[in-house]
């Protein structure tokens, strides 16, 4: 049914996850009906589920925005921000905004007013050091306080309380979780799993504690004991926001009472999300909210059959390093439990009257989908132990089509299969865009990829590219983890994921990742770096090193050349060679001589050993060349200065040519610039003349030298942030697609953000050769036996016929 556009249409109150979901669901069914979303906050709806990222990283709420402003424009959804609805008049079908704002007429009204954090009337709860954990402002305040607090307490040992505690701990503040009940997360866990979870979390937990008073520097419990705390976060539950509904005369219990079509007792007024009470339950999780939004949208666009039957709750704990999944009610009358306390693994399937009713998986999430399907369908389980064991083996092929894979968006295996077999998707990425599977909390992504592979007959275009088999996590997953938990070193990351142990194969990749994400303000751990990056030289086949000082743009001076020659003679350097990138390479330097060689060269490192920006090759350009259309040398020098010192996923070689004759071979560089006249520059990316030869793609042609520098730098940062470790641009560009890269790099907003992150990283970059004076470790360049004057290993030496 399409309404006449001049009709008042659908008005949604509340810009939370529920409000937005209703707008989306209405639009999916009806392109024409006017939709208005009224948000009390000054911002567009954001993803509250990821709120703790703000607590951990200090990011702004805007980074969690669910849909960009353009989406609302494209979909003709009118958004009114900063607007509080003061009154609903169900007879006149109008709502009134506070502060004398306009009155708005509606055809259908949806209340998505959510809830507020529950704050019990404990004496002292209104003090400034006591916070709720509900909105971005709370996170900012908690974060700020956590920096200077001596000791924090979180009241409430449920899902959110544990997340809050982990967030506070990530700021380096000691924290205790205070819980009223005899175990953590008592609504989801049984005693066995709760105990094991407590061990896994390695956090101070006080159980059976009723807080009687909050003093400025401590909590006092009902039994008289005290706990030191000058920062207190209260997370004991939610109170549905029902003020509007109540005043308008709707039936309200704990939440606004709705029927199976999400209708309230008022005509054409619906309620969805945490403000609604359906069959006596208020749901405080995203999955049921999205389901409700779909049903409400169906009902209010005229689908009389739409009905919501309730949702069996399932939860995943979003705390790094802890795998916990629960579904349904784990306290049945029958149960099968498998536990390995030493490994922190607990697996349980509970049954009631012979039917699956709940499951808990801690420390080993295999079979989560299979078990949750048993529970959702209430399937009869003859042998719970056998079913529990079988779930371990359940691969995507064995799963039934109705098995729900993505709990956030309610996508089943069948939907994913159909996206490939019927709707023509070929990659997991396309399937995710089409079905939205995997786009919520992301925990089902790996399974989505497996199912796409299954549907495509085993072949998928982009399988998850695990950073390392030991972690079974993609670069994106790890990056998200590092950001969310504010991890600053390789050992932190190793502890937080995979097997929890370090792995030599991926340490260097993790070292790059932590430095990139922390904009070089990470905690450097040298043992995670390849030998080249530990001593800043390129290891050669005989164990000696080669040294390439930086010569910006390949331009040098007689004095510099003289110094290089002197150093080569003094340190008995067997070979001096001009590299393919127009630099001078001193080969065969002994490790312990490196600091002295650098000192005497007095030049910065050329990073010829590193996954970093190596050289910007230039032609002579308009300065001397009779064809030159632009100052290629000058631009090359400028670019190299701008980029030097920055690490990249793989080595980056660049070139600048002054005209299409292309003497600097810029069209086969990772990033190449070619002057095409009138101060215009062609910016090319993804070229190579190494093991594989690839002509660089034209990213764009720009109108000025400054713009050429800007676009190239933006691309460099995009590559730094998105490529897999060791992935050269010639693999990266075709994989990601030139269009996607161009969109990101040339978009003013994302481009500016990329350049800002580039600036931060660059500001923290230093010349590694300065370690000659301030070594990272006193024995960074020496072996204990060098000091004993041990024999020098035989060198490879120059080719016969010699270089010198």
């Amino acid at each position, binding site marked *: 049914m399409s309404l006449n556009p001049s009709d008042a249409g659908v008005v949604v109150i509340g810009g939370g996850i529920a409000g937005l979901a209703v707008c989306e669901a209405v639009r999916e069914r009806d392109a024409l009906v006017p939709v208005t979303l009224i948000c009390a906050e000054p911002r567009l709806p954001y993803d509250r589920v990821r709120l703790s990222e703000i607590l951990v990283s200090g990011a702004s709420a805007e980074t969690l925005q669910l849909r960009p402003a353009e989406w609302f424009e494209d979909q003709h959804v009118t958004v009114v921000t900063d607007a509080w609805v003061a009154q609903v008049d169900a007879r006149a079908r109008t709502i009134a905004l506070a502060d004398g704002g306009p009155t708005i007429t509606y055809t259908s009204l949806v209340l998505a007013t959510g809830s507020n954090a529950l704050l019990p009337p404990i004496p002292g709860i209104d003090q400034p050091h006591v916070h709720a954990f509900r909105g971005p402002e709370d996170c900012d305040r908690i974060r700020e306080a956590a920096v200077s607090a001596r000791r924090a307490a979180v009241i409430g040992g449920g899902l959110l309380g544990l997340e809050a505690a982990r967030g506070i701990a990530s700021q380096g503040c000691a924290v205790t979780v205070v819980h009223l009940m005899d175990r953590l997360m008592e609504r989801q866990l049984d005693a066995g799993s709760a105990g094991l979870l407590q061990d896994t979390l390695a956090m101070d937990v006080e159980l059976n504690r009723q807080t009687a008073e909050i003093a400025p520097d401590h909590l006092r419990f009902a039994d008289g004991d005290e706990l030191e705390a000058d920062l207190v976060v209260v997370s004991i539950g939610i109170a549905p926001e029902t003020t509007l509904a109540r005043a308008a005369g709707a039936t309200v219990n704990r939440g606004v009472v709705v029927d199976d079509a999400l209708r309230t007792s008022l005509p054409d007024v619906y309620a969805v999300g945490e403000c609604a009470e359906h069959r006596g339950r208020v749901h405080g999780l995203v999955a049921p909210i999205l389901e409700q939004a779909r049903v409400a949208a169906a009902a209010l666009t005229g689908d009389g059959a739409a009905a919501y039957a309730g949702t069996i709750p399932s939860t995943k704990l979003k705390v790094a390093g802890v795998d916990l999944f629960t579904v349904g009610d784990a306290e049945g009358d029958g149960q099968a439990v498998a536990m390995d306390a030493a490994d922190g693994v607990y697996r349980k399937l509970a049954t009631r009257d012979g039917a699956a009713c709940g499951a808990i998986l801690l420390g080993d999430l295999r079979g989560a989908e299979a078990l949750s399907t048993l529970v959702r369908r209430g399937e009869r389980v003859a042998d719970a132990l056998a079913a529990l064991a079988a779930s371990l083996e359940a691969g995507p092929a064995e799963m039934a089509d109705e098995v729900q894979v993505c709990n956030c968006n309610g996508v089943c295996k069948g939907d994913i299969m159909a996206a490939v077999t019927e709707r023509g998707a070929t990659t997991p990425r396309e399937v995710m865009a089409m079905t939205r599977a995997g786009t919520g909390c992301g925990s089902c992504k790996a399974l989505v990829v497996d199912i796409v592979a299954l549907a495509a007959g085993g072949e998928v275009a982009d399988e998850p590219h695990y950073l390392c088999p030991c972690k079974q996590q993609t670069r994106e997953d790890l990056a998200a983890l590092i950001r969310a938990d504010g991890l600053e070193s390789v050992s932190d990351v190793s502890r937080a994921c995979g097997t929890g*142990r*370090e*792995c*030599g*194969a991926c*340490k*260097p990749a993790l070292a790059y990742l932590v430095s990139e994400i922390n904009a070089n303000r990470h905690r450097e*751990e*040298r*043992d*995670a770096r*390849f*030998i080249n990056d*530990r001593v800043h030289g390129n*290891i050669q*086949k*005989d*164990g000696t090193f080669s040294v390439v000082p930086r010569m910006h743009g390949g331009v040098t001076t007689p004095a510099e050349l003289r110094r290089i020659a002197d150093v080569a003679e003094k340190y008995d350097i067997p070979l001096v060679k001009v590299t393919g990138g127009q630099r001078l390479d001193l080969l065969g330097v002994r490790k312990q001589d490196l600091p002295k060689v650098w000192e005497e060269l007095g030049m910065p490192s050329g990073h010829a050993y590193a996954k970093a920006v190596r050289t910007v090759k230039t032609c002579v350009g308009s300065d001397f060349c009779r064809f030159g259309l632009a100052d290629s040398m000058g631009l090359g020098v400028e670019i190299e200065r701008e980029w030097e010192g920055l690490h990249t996923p793989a080595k980056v070689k660049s070139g600048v040519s002054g005209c299409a004759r292309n003497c600097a071979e810029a069209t086969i560089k990772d990033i190449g610039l070619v002057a095409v006249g009138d101060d215009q520059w062609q910016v090319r990316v993804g070229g190579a003349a190494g093991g594989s030869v690839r002509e660089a793609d034209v990213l764009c042609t720009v109108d000025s030298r400054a713009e050429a520098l800007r676009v190239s730098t933006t691309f460099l940062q995009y590559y730094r942030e998105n490529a897999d470790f060791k992935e050269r641009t010639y693999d990266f560009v075709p994989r990601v697609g030139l269009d996607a890269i161009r969109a990101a790099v040339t978009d003013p907003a994302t481009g500016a953000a990329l350049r800002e992150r580039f600036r931060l990283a660059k500001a923290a970059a230093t010349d590694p050769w300065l370690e000659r004076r301030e070594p*990272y*470790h*006193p*024995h*960074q360049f*020496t*072996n*204990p*036996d060098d000091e*004993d004057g*041990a024999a020098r290993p035989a060198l490879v030496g120059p080719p016969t016929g010699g270089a010198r």
Partner: protein
Amino acid sequence: MTYACPVDAIPTGEGRTVTVDGHRVALFRTAAGWYAIDRACPHAGGPLADGIAADCSVICPLHERRFALDTGAPIGHDGPGVRAHHVEVRDGRVYVAIGVPATEGVPAAA
């Protein structure tokens, strides 16, 4: 048992080459403890002390062959392994016994 070097001559997590009784060995100081194996990779003589050490193994810096630090056994390839030697730490000094097999899985104190 021969004195090799002081404990702090090797940064934690890294390895260094030391000469013990005329043998050049790669000595590692990992978070879990100390290990010593032959210095040269049997593949092409790579300096194993310069490799990346983690999880009781080292990866040769030249062509990435991997060896167990406690036994010297090759990991993930069929080539030959290297000898592992016994290490002991006393009073901040590291001692190595060449040719005395290391006790499997038991490193010297960290």
